[in-house]
């Protein structure tokens, strides 16, 4: 077992884990934050995307020991109690989800895009979503939601 200490959604937390524990297992099984999903477990689908030190990563393809000392943010960090984050609200308003399985990963991925490029064009958004699969929506409303979310985040 190895000790890890990280800042998870703003709180310093620690755990003793096997080296082979994946970051997504630490988040879901150890800290019971189940908003981060496992879709493929093969680095393809992006359902598991979280932020590590401010950039989006696939938490199924990182070892939990690699985030020792890092800042990790999951979808649970976004809403302010009952008030949704503007990007979450935009997904709701624009029907950017159906079953919702891909949504947490897509929102975390989109927020990384907005941090780099606050005014993404439709093609910027579509390019950026290369690492996120959605089996329900056909992406159209996801793209609209991200555009609207980016606008809303300015105010």
């Amino acid at each position, binding site marked *: 077992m*190895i000790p890890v200490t990280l800042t998870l959604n703003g709180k310093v937390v620690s755990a003793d884990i*096997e*080296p*082979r524990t*994946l970051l997504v297992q630490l988040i879901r099984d150890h800290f019971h934050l189940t908003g981060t999903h496992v879709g493929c*477990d*093969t*680095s*393809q689908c*992006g359902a598991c*995307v979280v932020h590590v030190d401010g*950039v*989006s*990563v*696939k938490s199924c*393809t*990182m*070892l939990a*020991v*690699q985030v*020792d000392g890092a800042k990790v943010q999951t979808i649970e960090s976004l809403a302010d109690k009952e008030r949704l984050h503007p990007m979450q609200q935009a997904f709701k308003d624009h029907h950017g989800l159906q079953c919702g399985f891909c949504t947490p990963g897509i929102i975390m*991925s989109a927020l*990384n*895009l907005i941090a780099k490029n606050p005014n993404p064009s439709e093609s910027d958004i579509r390019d*950026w979503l*290369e*690492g*996120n699969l959605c089996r329900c929506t056909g992406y159209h409303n996801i793209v609209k939601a991200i555009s609207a979310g980016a606008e809303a985040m300015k105010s």
Partner: protein
Amino acid sequence: MYDFSYKRPTSLSDAAEMSEQAEDGSFLAGGMTLIPALKLRLASPSILIDLGGVQDLTGISQENNTLTVRAMTKHADVAVSSEVKNAIPALSEVAESIGDPQVRNRGTIGGSISNADPAADYPAALLGLGATVETNSRTIGSDDFFTGLFGTALNANELVVAVHFPIPKRAVYMKFPNPASRYAIVGVMVAECSDEIRVAVTGAGPSVFRVFEMEEALQKNFSPNSIQDMIVSADGLNEDMHASADYRAHLITVMAKRAVAKLI
């Protein structure tokens, strides 16, 4: 995934020593290839030596006519670097074309070239630009570095420290990506270097290779017309569910022509 022990050295010499002492150790860089391989039990090292904590293994710098990218520099950082964009815009485009944003946020140049996937993009940049690989014990020219399917000239326990790219007069990378993974079905780097023209092809064969016939023709006349009838033999090229060997052979000429057209 089988269990392993985990080490996080802070110096190059410690990393190399840990690897020498381990019976069956593996370096961990971005993990974008290694972690999926561990899950599939295609790799089962007893010790993972994480290079993430080693000092001085990241960063981009330029000295005279050479651009240096250190081994742990992530694809995303190469893609946006203004130094790379100024010196070798084609290298920035290579990095930007890899996988997806999350893969680029973790994957590293050292990991990519050490792994030497036949469809990886960086090998075309190294061979096309005539780069030199610096390891913890020597330097290896790109013509000698890639030795075959997932094969490199690296010895066991040898570590890639940096890649030195001579700055070309002009260069471009043309890639026909697999639409799902973005790995290259065929990718061609064409570069006009200080004293030669180089054409390097990834994705098509078991390992990246140069097309000398095209290089000679372009040396005489730098125009897409001078290579349009040159078809690389399909013998020994990759054949899989994504593309036949014949199709790949055809794509090499198409991508090379597009690259030349873009450069003039």
